[in-house]
């Protein structure tokens, strides 16, 4: 295999369709669950359209559900969204020229589009694959959110369908690659255990916030050399 020839993966039609279906199902599920716990259809539609982060919405709702107050719940939602900040950092070396184009790509940083963009050898290809992936995600998400908003009223008891297991499972799949690395696994297991122990003890919201301690433990236990030669993931 010659390295020059390897231009990076392309989003083919099957990948495009899979992404649309994936984001469609997530959008539907999120809406149905939001409406099931008592959010009005209009509010659920607006929330999922503008926040566009099921992780943050779920972190917020989990804290509220545990009896937490507004700000700890919001803080938990914002902390889990650091994922998107990190994705924006990873995307930096692959950002296109031009202020507006950089801005547009940065605010749309998600797991699938950043993953494909950083694997491209050519900047032009990186931008093209980034936006094709983004288009698939958006198409799936917004149609899913729209359909889910209507289904929410029709479906009834969602726990019967096992929908409450969908989001933890989806998050696990998203984090799969990171949890496969040694440091990622240490951070994940420690963070998860901290949260588990703290749920019955600490005020709602704090278990998620304090799970950040898992990062400290992972860095302390890391066997990676102190100075890596580059910051690329």
């Amino acid at each position: 295999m010659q390295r020059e020839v390897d231009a990076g993966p392309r989003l083919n039609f099957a990948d495009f369709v899979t992404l649309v279906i994936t984001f469609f199902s997530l959008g539907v599920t999120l809406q149905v669950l939001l409406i099931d716990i008592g959010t009005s259809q209009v509010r659920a539609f607006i929330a999922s359209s503008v926040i566009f982060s099921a992780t943050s919405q779920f972190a917020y709702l989990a804290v509220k559900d545990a009896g937490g107050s507004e700000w700890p719940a919001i803080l938990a939602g914002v902390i889990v969204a650091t994922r998107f900040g990190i994705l924006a950092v990873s995307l930096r070396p692959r950002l296109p020229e031009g202020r507006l184009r950089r801005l547009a790509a940065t605010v749309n940083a998600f797991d699938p589009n950043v993953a494909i963009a950083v694997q491209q050898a050519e900047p032009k290809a990186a931008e093209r694959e980034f936006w094709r992936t983004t288009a698939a995600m958006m198409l799936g998400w917004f149609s899913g959110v729209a359909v889910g908003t209507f289904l929410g009223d029709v479906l009834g008891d969602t726990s019967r369908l096992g929908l409450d297991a969908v989001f933890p499972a989806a998050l696990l799949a998203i984090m799969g690659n990171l949890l496969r690395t040694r440091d990622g696994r240490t951070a994940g297991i420690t963070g998860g255990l901290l949260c588990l122990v703290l749920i019955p003890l600490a005020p709602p919201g704090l278990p998620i916030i304090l799970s950040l301690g898992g990062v400290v433990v992972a860095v302390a236990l890391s066997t990676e050399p102190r100075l890596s030669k580059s910051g690329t993931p």
Partner: protein
Amino acid sequence: MTTLSIIALTIGVWGQRLLGGFVVGPWLERQPTLTRAAKLIPAAVVTAVIVQLTVADGRTLVADARLAGVLVAGVLVWRKAPFLVVVLGAAVTTALLRAL
């Protein structure tokens, strides 16, 4: 979801991308240890959210059909199953256990 939470989360989610891409990013790239720590944040906090969504009922810990579903998802992720298979596996396991 309250109006306050919708506004605050929107700013928090989209704002962090701008922070990462334009403010913290350029500085962070020169701090290898901090960069590594920052990349581990999602592993810790997202796992915490997974735990909360899987075994918490309010502030009590419960082991129910959800846990079984997420465990099945864990095995599927470990075996590198496609995303939709993972999600469906979790939902079907949970639904079947509840139907019993």
